[in-house]
């Protein structure tokens, strides 16, 4: 995407079906490309959600906000990561550890399994760390169980999707058997720095949905609040962009921008020949994020993660794209995505290193408490050639004062 004189100018695209390089000139653009959850290996997200929208905006100069806040949903089905809805616990499901005992009493004595997502996800990880995870059936992965057996008579009516998924993908009958679950990457609280009018610092550029960061979720989204973000703010963005477009002309195309991007893809990316496989870099990146920038974070792990990301970036310079076809070249698509993912991984990790506190979904083992004095502020990441420049912005508090969270 190109911005000229503080205003949206044009967008370059590749038609996957034909390989055609096409430029869209326009008056306004709405970013609504979702989050960045596939930066992680164990994820509830569809494969296509690789954070492209965030990265495209970032590279064009739009700051990203609060990217270190990645939500982990407590119950991703093992081993696929398919989401087992919160409704399973809301309707009365239990979580059992490897000893088949309920454990939420120790972590959230009042709310138990109904505590918020970050609390339950950490509780599961603490059980696993304490050696009380279940293991065996799914490779090296440790997990806990979701128990719905005591509500077998209402399952088909209230949670038909869950019984279907358990049966189809794991061959498990949720009426009589336990479902293996593990916390999975589920939502990107951060995104394009935008506001409730869906506008950004650049005119003609709007953002909505998970791609945007209006901060309605703060550091920890509550279940179903993404729906209002999509429906309400999606509507606002569409109406606002249309209104903007009616009132403005199409800016002149800067052809040299377009030529440079075409060269970057055809003369650089497609001609790199160092033998590195993009899928392997992606796999290493995802495992690195799971391990070092996941539910539990600390200075050691985060610094290792950042070092690893830099080495993946070096390997990315040496990729070889084997597929030379124009038609449906998925490997080129993957290569472009991995480039985006590396930038975003860096932003998330740097933001997490600098936020030496725990808040919502961002949990530092070495700084387990929330520190409102120093960190009640938004992280802002701005693109530079040498990596993200981090600054901070005050949090606007209106009706609800921050309080201690107890469950």
């Amino acid at each position, binding site marked *: 995407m190109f911005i000229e004189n503080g205003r949206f100018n044009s967008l370059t695209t590749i038609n996957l079906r034909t390989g055609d390089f096409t430029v869209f000139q326009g008056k306004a653009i709405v970013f609504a490309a979702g989050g960045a959850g596939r930066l992680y290996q164990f994820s509830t997200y*569809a494969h296509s959600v690789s954070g492209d929208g965030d990265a495209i905006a970032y590279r064009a100069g739009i700051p990203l906000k609060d990217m270190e806040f990645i939500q982990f949903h407590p119950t991703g089905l093992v*081993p696929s990561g*398919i*989401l087992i809805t919160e409704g399973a616990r809301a309707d009365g499901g239990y979580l059992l550890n490897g000893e088949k005992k309920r454990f939420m009493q120790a972590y959230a004595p009042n709310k138990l399994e109904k505590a918020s997502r970050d609390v339950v996800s950490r509780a599961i990880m603490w059980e696993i760390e304490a050696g009380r995870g279940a293991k065996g059936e799914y490779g090296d992965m440790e997990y806990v169980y979701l128990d719905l057996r005591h509500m077998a008579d209402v399952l088909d009516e209230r949670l038909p999707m869950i019984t279907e998924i358990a049966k189809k*993908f794991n061959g498990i009958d949720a009426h009589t058997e336990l479902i293996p679950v593990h916390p999975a990457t589920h939502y990107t609280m951060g995104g394009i720095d935008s506001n409730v009018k869906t506008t950004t610092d650049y005119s003609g550029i709007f953002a909505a949905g998970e791609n945007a960061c209006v901060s309605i979720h703060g550091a920890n989204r509550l279940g179903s609040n993404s729906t209002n973000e999509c429906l309400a703010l999606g509507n606002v963005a569409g109406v606002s962009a249309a209104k903007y477009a009616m009132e403005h002309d199409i800016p002149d195309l800067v052809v040299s921008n377009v030529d440079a991007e075409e060269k970057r893809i055809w003369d650089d990316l497609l001609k790199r020949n160092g033998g590195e496989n993009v899928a392997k870099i992606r796999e290493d990146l995802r495992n690195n994020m799971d391990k070092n920038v996941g539910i539990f974070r600390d200075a050691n792990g985060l610094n290792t993660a950042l070092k690893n990301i830099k080495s993946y970036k070096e390997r990315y310079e040496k990729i070889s794209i084997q*597929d030379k076809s124009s038609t*449906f*070249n998925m490997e080129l698509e993957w290569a472009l995505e991995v480039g985006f993912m590396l930038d975003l991984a860096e932003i998330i990790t740097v933001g997490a290193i600098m936020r030496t506190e725990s808040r919502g979904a961002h949990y530092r083992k070495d700084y387990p408490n929330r520190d409102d004095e120093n960190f009640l502020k938004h992280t802002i990441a701005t693109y530079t050639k040498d990596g993200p420049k981090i600054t901070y912005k005050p949090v606007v508090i209106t009706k609800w004062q921050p309080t201690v969270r107890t469950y």
Partner: protein
Amino acid sequence: MADEYEFEIKRKDESGKVYYSTYKVPKDKISTVLEGLLYIKENLDQSLSFRYSCRMEICGSCGMEIDGKPRMACSTIVEDLKKDHIKIEPLKHYKVIRDLVVDIDPFFDKYREVKPYIIRDDDGKYDKELPQTPEQFHEYANFAMCIKCGLCMAACPIEGSDPNYLGPAPLAAAWRYIADNRDQGAKYRVEVVDGEEGTSRCHFAGECTEVCPKGVDPSFAIQKLRRTALKIEIASIFGGR
């Protein structure tokens, strides 16, 4: 039993050349056909093309002919096929773009023809909620499960001989809206549904219902549509709407 599956995949490159490639996929690395395809693409052959996204039978992207039947790659557990040699081909009745990727535009064009959305005489300008009882919801709930994967179009024998036939998924979608108590668009849909390329072409082979991964029953919807069309026609003869 061997430690590996053999995936024999029908290919078509951009010059139009058609051939088969066979790959060995370790059994302990994958569970579903989609995971097998991703394993091949990531480790063995970067040129293999296929569509996929959600891997949980929601997005409807990864339909293909697996072991001689239209199935979703993401929800087909290889072990359940009970064989080590798995043949995979693009969906029948669609034009192949490349390898396992088919052109779904004609399918979506047909889908649009049945006006798959709620149509109101008041043009949506109502000021109260439109209530719906659980019974009314269940009138159409089964048909709302369609993920537009298009497997039924590949299974339907009429689609094979008459590409203009609307086909099971679009007809099921027509019924999904007609059966919805909030909808008043039956009179507009009937023209399309009851036309030359509509329900009358269906022979009730039932293949559509058989292959639907979401348990939708298009052949039942088609029977319901025929009755509704008849009722509307009779009513119009006697001057009603």
